[in-house]
C-alpha cells in the first residue's frame, strides 16, 4: 500500500514526524511535488470559491496524488487542549475530500488530535494514542505503531530544536535581519513564500522564521502582545516568535495567503503592538505577476539598509 502525503498545510509542521513514522514501519509513501501553477489552478477549481489560498493549494496537492497512491494521509488536527485550537480548515479536509471526490471515494489514512474529547471521533486523545488508532488501517500491532511513533517523534523534535537553534544563531549574527511572520505552509510553499524569501536573500537580507521558537515558551510569551483569549495555537506561537526575536531584527514581514481569518487578527495585533520596527504586510492571492511584490520587497529592503546607514 502506498500512502500519499500532500505537500501542503500541516505537512510543513508535522512532515518530519509523518515521514519518519511511515519509514520506520517500512510503509511505501509518496509526498506530492512542490506547488506550481497547475496545482494551484486545479485546487482553485476544486475548492469552494471563498476558501483561502492555502486550502486551494492543499486540494491541488490531494488531486495530484490520487493516481499515485492507495490512500491519502489526512490527519484531523483539531485542537491542542490548553495550547489552543487549529484553524477550522484542518478539521474540514476529510469532509471536503469526501465531498469533492464523491464518485472516486479515495481511501483516507487518518488520526485525530482532539484534547477536548468532545468530538465524535473515536480515538480522540493525545498524539501517541491518536497514532495508535492507525494500527488497524496499517495492519500493524499496537507495539509496532508505538515504537515507530516514539522513534519518529524523537527525530522530529530533534529536527525542530536544530532549526530553532539555527534561527537563534541568525538572530544573534551579523547582517540586516528580517523576522518573517506567517504560517509555515505559506512561508515554505514554492509558489507563495519561497519566491519572496529568495527575493529578500538576493538583497542580502537574513531571514528568521517566527515559527522557529520554543513552543512552550511561546505559549507563555504570546500574552505579552495579546490577552490570553487568542484561540489558535500557531498564531500564539507566531506572536511568541515576535516577542522572542523583535529586538534582534531590523524589520518584520507579515506574509499571508488571502483570505486568512487568524492572520487578519494576528497581523493587526502585531501592527499595533510593535511600533519600533518597520513592518511590511504582504498579501498573496495567487497573482501571476510578481511585479507588485517585487516593488514592496525592494522598497522595504531599501528602508532597512538606508536606515542602518543613516543615508538620505
Amino acid at each position: 500500500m502506498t500512502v500519499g502525503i500532500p505537500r501542503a498545510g500541516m505537512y510543513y509542521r508535522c512532515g518530519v514526524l509523518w515521514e519518519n513514522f511511515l519509514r520506520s514501519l517500512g510503509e511505501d509513501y509518496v509526498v506530492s511535488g512542490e506547488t506550481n501553477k497547475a496545482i494551484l489552478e486545479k485546487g482553485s477549481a476544486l475548492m469552494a470559491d471563498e476558501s483561502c489560498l492555502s486550502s486551494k493549494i492543499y486540494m491541488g496537492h490531494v488531486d495530484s496524488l490520487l493516481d499515485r497512491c492507495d490512500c491519502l494521509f489526512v490527519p484531523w488536527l483539531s485542537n491542542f487542549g490548553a495550547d489552543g485550537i487549529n484553524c477550522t480548515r484542518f478539521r474540514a479536509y476529510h469532509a471536503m475530500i469526501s465531498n469533492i471526490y464523491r464518485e472516486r471515494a479515495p481511501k483516507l489514512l487518518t488520526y485525530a488530535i482532539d484534547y477536548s474529547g468532545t468530538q465524535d471521533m473515536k480515538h480522540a486523545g493525545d498524539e501517541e494514542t491518536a497514532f495508535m488508532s492507525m494500527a488497524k488501517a496499517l495492519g500493524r500491532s499496537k507495539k509496532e505503531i508505538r515504537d515507530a511513533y516514539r522513534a519518529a517523534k524523537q527525530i522530529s523534535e530533534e529536527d525542530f530544536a536544530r532549526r530553532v537553534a539555527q534561527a537563534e544563531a541568525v538572530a544573534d549574527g551579523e547582517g540586516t535581519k528580517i523576522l518573517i511572520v506567517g504560517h509555515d505552509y505559506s512561508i515554505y510553499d514554492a509558489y507563495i513564500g519561497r519566491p519572496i524569501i529568495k527575493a529578500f536573500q538576493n538583497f542580502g537580507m537574513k531571514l528568521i522564521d517566527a515559527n522557529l521558537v520554543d513552543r512552550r515558551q511561546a505559549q507563555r510569551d504570546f500574552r505579552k502582545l495579546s490577552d490570553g483569549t487568542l484561540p489558535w495555537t500557531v498564531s500564539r506561537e507566531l506572536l511568541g516568535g515576535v516577542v522572542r526575536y523583535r529586538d534582534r531584527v531590523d524589520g518584520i514581514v507579515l506574509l499571508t495567503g488571502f483570505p486568512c481569518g487568524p492572520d487578519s487578527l494576528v497581523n493587526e495585533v502585531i501592527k499595533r503592538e510593535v511600533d519600533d520596527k518597520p513592518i511590511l504586510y504582504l498579501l498573496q492571492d495567487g497573482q501571476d505577476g510578481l511585479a507588485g511584490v517585487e516593488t514592496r520587497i525592494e522598497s522595504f529592503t531599501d528602508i532597512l539598509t538606508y536606515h542602518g546607514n543613516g543615508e538620505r
Partner: protein
Amino acid sequence: MKKAYLGVDVGSISTKGVIIDENKKILAGEYLYTKGDPMNAVRTLLRRLEQQFDAAERTVVAVGTTGSARKLIGAVLNAAVVKNEITAHAIGTTNIHPDVRTIFEIGGQDSKIIILRGGVVTDYAMNTLCAAGTGAFISNQAARLDIPVEEFGAIAMRSNDPTPIAARCTVFAESDLVHKVQIGCSKEDICAGLCRAVVLNYLNNVAKGKKIEPPIVFQGGVSKNIGVVRAFENETGQEIIVDENGHLAGAFGAAILAMRSGEERPFDFAVTEMDFKITGKSCGRCANNCEVIRVFRDGEMIDSWGNRCERGAAKA
C-alpha cells in the same frame, strides 16, 4: 562638457521626466499621460525634454528609471539605476523638503504613505489588493457625474455640506452615488463627499496605524485635486503641502539615484526612435507557465524577465 542626469518615472496613468545637473538643479521637467503605451509616452517625453535641454553645454551621462514600467523603460534607456517608486519618491521629496515627516501619495492605481524621520524612510504602506480610493476611482465617478476630472476639486470646494458616501469599495460607492443623485443631493455636495470619502478610505486603510506627523507632503496625480487636499486638511487638522513640482518627485529621485550610482552609460535622446519590440509569451516549459517578457532592439534581444526558474530564461 558638463554632466547631466535623467530620471524617468513611468506610471500607469502618467509619465514624468526630469533632467538635473550635478547640484540637483532641475534643468528640464515634463509630464504627460501614459495612455496605456509606455514606449510611446517615453518617446514623446524625451523629445520634449530635449527641447528644454542645452545639449551644447551638457551631456546626459546616466539615466534612472522608476514607476511600474521602470524595468521595461530601464532596459530601453540602458539605465544605470532601476528603482522602486517608494525609494525614488522619498529621495526626490527629501531633496525638496528636507524636514518632511509624512508623504501621502495617491496615484492612478496605487496609494502609499511614507513615514520619514530625520530625512530617512522608517516605514511605509501601500494599498493591498484593490484600487479603491485611488485616482482611477475619482476619474470613474467624475465620468459618471459628467464632470471633467480637472474641475472636480473646484466644484467640491463650493460645497458647505459634503454628502456622506461609502468609499470602502468602488462598486458600493457607485450604487451609493446613484442613490444620492436620485434623492437630490447637489453636484457640489456629492463631489465634496467623494473627496472626503477618498481621504477617509486612505486614512483608515493605507495609513492605518501610522504616526502621521507634520510636515505632510501630498503627491501623486490626486494631489492636483484641491477638494481632496482640503478634505485631508480637515481630517488631519494639519497643513498639507502640495508642491508644484510634486508630480515630478519620483523622476527627480530617480535622477538623483542615477547621479549617486557613479555609473555612466552613453545616452542618446533619439534612443527610443530605434526599433523596439516587446513580447510577453507563456513559457510552457513547466507547470508554472510563466509569462516571460522580452525586449528587442533592432531585432536583437536586450533584456528579459518574468521567469520563475532557469528553464524560462530567454536566450539572448
